[in-house]
């Protein structure tokens, strides 16, 4: 006790100084090692896993995209691949399954927000377009189009809307595990893209 105290009082604490230097060196080496090890895992921006995206092949349209996104309106929107579309009059993504008449009356439409617009092209073809300001990513039309149609409607995370959360709250609840991190090249998984 006494000796200890003397040391504190008198000596410039060389022992503590020594420990400090050692720990400094260890910490420095730690920073280097950690940085070096992590640096080997770094990928350039083109191939780094930066974006969240839905794989339309896996998606089962459970409807959680609409409600689980951190944004007030989900960043998931419906996308229409015109080149896959059959341009049918009786569209499985446009009309409800039991639609009585093929008109735009509310009781016949699938889309709850009226975000799908259609335009007559030529007999018997109709062009369908998504109004993305109205779409909320509920996936009802996608379900319709997948079960009765070519599957040209599908859900995608709009990268210009997505906040790129480090932990995607939709991916956490996604029923089919369809949402994964993708690199820049495949930021969209398009159905009409090679």
């Amino acid at each position, binding site marked *: 006790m006494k000796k200890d105290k003397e040391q504190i009082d008198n000596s410039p604490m060389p022992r503590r100084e020594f420990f400090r230097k050692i720990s400094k060196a260890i910490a420095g080496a730690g920073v280097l090692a950690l940085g070096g090890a992590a640096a080997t895992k770094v990928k350039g921006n083109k191939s780094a896993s930066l974006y969240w995206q839905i794989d339309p092949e896996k998606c089962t349209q459970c409807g959680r995209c609409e*409600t689980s996104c951190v944004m*007030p309106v989900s960043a998931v929107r419906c996308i229409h691949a015109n080149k896959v579309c059959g341009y049918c009059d009786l569209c499985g993504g446009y009309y*409800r399954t039991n639609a*009585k008449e093929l008109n735009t009356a*509310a*009781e016949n439409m699938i889309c*709850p*927000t009226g975000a799908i617009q259609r335009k007559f092209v030529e007999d018997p073809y109709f062009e369908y377009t998504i109004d993305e300001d109205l779409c909320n990513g509920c996936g009802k039309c996608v379900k319709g189009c997948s079960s009765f149609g070519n599957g040209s409607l599908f859900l995608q995370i709009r990268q210009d809307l997505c906040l790129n959360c480090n932990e995607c709250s939709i991916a956490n609840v996604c029923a089919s595990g369809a949402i994964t991190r993708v690199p820049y090249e495949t930021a969209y998984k398009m159905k009409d893209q090679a």
Partner: protein
Amino acid sequence: MKKNIYRNIAIVTAIFALTLSIMLITNYFQVRKATPLQTEVVQTLKELNDVNADNLQLQEQIRQLDLLSRRAYFVQRSHLKTGLYLLLGMLGVLLVCLRLYYSGVKDIPEKEIDHLDDWLIQSKARKYVLGGAGAVAVAALVFAFLSSPYYSSLGERRAQKKALAQQEEFEAPQEEIFDAESFDPAQLTADATAPETEAPEEETAPQEESQTEEAASEEPVVEQPVISTVTHNAFRGNNSNGQSNARGVPVNWDLSAGSNIAWKVSVAKPGFNSPVLNGRNVFLTGADASARELYCYDLLTGELRWTLAADGIAGSPSTMPTVNGDTGLAASSVATNGSQVCAIFATGDIICADIDGNRLWAKNLGVPDNHYGFASSLLIYGGEVIVQYDNDSDGKLIALNLSNGNVRWTKSRTEKATWSSPIIAYIDGKAQLVVMGNPALTAYNPDNGEMLWKVDCMSGEVGASPCSSNGIVYGASEYASLVAVNAQDGSLLWEANDYLPEVSSPVATKDYVYVATSYGMLIAYDASNGEILAEQDLGTQFYCSPMLVEGKIYIFGTEGNMYIFSNDGKLTLLRTIQTGEPTFATPAFTDGKIVVRSTESLYCVSAS
């Protein structure tokens, strides 16, 4: 002065911010509770409209509601957004004011500082850390105990224990039965000379003394229908192992004279599959080009309880696959567990019924690519039915969920077509699913299909099934060899090549392995080294598999002679019973009864 202004602004903004946030929170929950676009009302109305034709009023209602809910949705959306920005702005103002109000304030010690005792603080902190860590650890332990499999599946474990106990129960009497010393073959040979009616009485007499319980359940069989608990759930008995712990099994009967024959019926459609019995039900199948059927007969009366046709199955071929006459369309025996029964046919159709003949599910596994015809029997293990689906193009082992027919697991096999059937071998209390194949004898975990071991030892056309006893699995096939494999690690113990079975499957006790060949030889091998202990040339043909029952070996020759041998490695022929009806199927045994399927009939031998 300035300070007061800041303070007042702060108070006002605080009140506003509080009110606004309360409003926003209520709004948030309202929106969340009634997501306007998913309102049940609109949905039900739409569904109502689907059934009601041209109800204009209803349609109008839907349109109005839809519009309303859409407007509500978008308005609320924009309200929430504006509200949040407003709130944020207010909070910002509040914060700035608060900071300005307190800007000059410093946390200067007001009075003289009473110096803190660092050591005291540290000691306290140490106590808190220790206490906290201990509390967390205890909580974690309690939680782990409560939710660990030990606790939550206590019931499950009890059930498992029970099953295991039953298993042991099943194995224990076997040893007793097969103990050759306890059985006196001399008595039986003596009986053979005695009047026929006396034989069974004397046979059962010593048992009545030693095991009154068993005898009590056995004796009244004729008078009142007491059902034996001894089952024969699959081809060659439970677990397809060629053994039964039935007692009081008849050793003499006369089919043509009808003595000791409880009943005899003819089966509607032919099939080489063996009868299977559980409780009061006897199951078997029959098939021809027109139909494939599963039959259930009453064990006591022989009455056909029900017939279930395997028809209308998606994927079932319209034309029958070409099969050999020796195989037929219904060579596979059914499997049951007492509440369900499954049957498979050469078309790849598998059906499952409850014991009252109600079809539970059916599916087609694809027509097996098999040049003689599919012949592997089914086996039920736990909640799954196992199909050895070996064929020339895509052989696999399939476990189907017994309750719905969904695939629990599959294991693809490189084997060529085989006609052998899977067995369950209990090794150290754990079940192994053992199957023969060309070129290997393989054991799998029946729970998930994981391969446990594999011994490359087979070749040619593998028709016989394996058997197991005392931790050793035996497999044998003509033009290959008889092998004994240590089922713990899959190591080969010995191999023998002298007499090998073609169709008939071997059976084993802890001392002996019995093999019946298609040229009429019955061989007893030493289970420890594969040496031949005894051989019997019966001058017949064995397609039926030997069954070990009550310390005796029961086997039919194809011409219809039942041979009963002693199970003592000496193969003493105890009795030959001529039935006169060609028999290929292995009979089913229960207490006091044998159910035999010949090519002509199905009959039940019962000790009167």
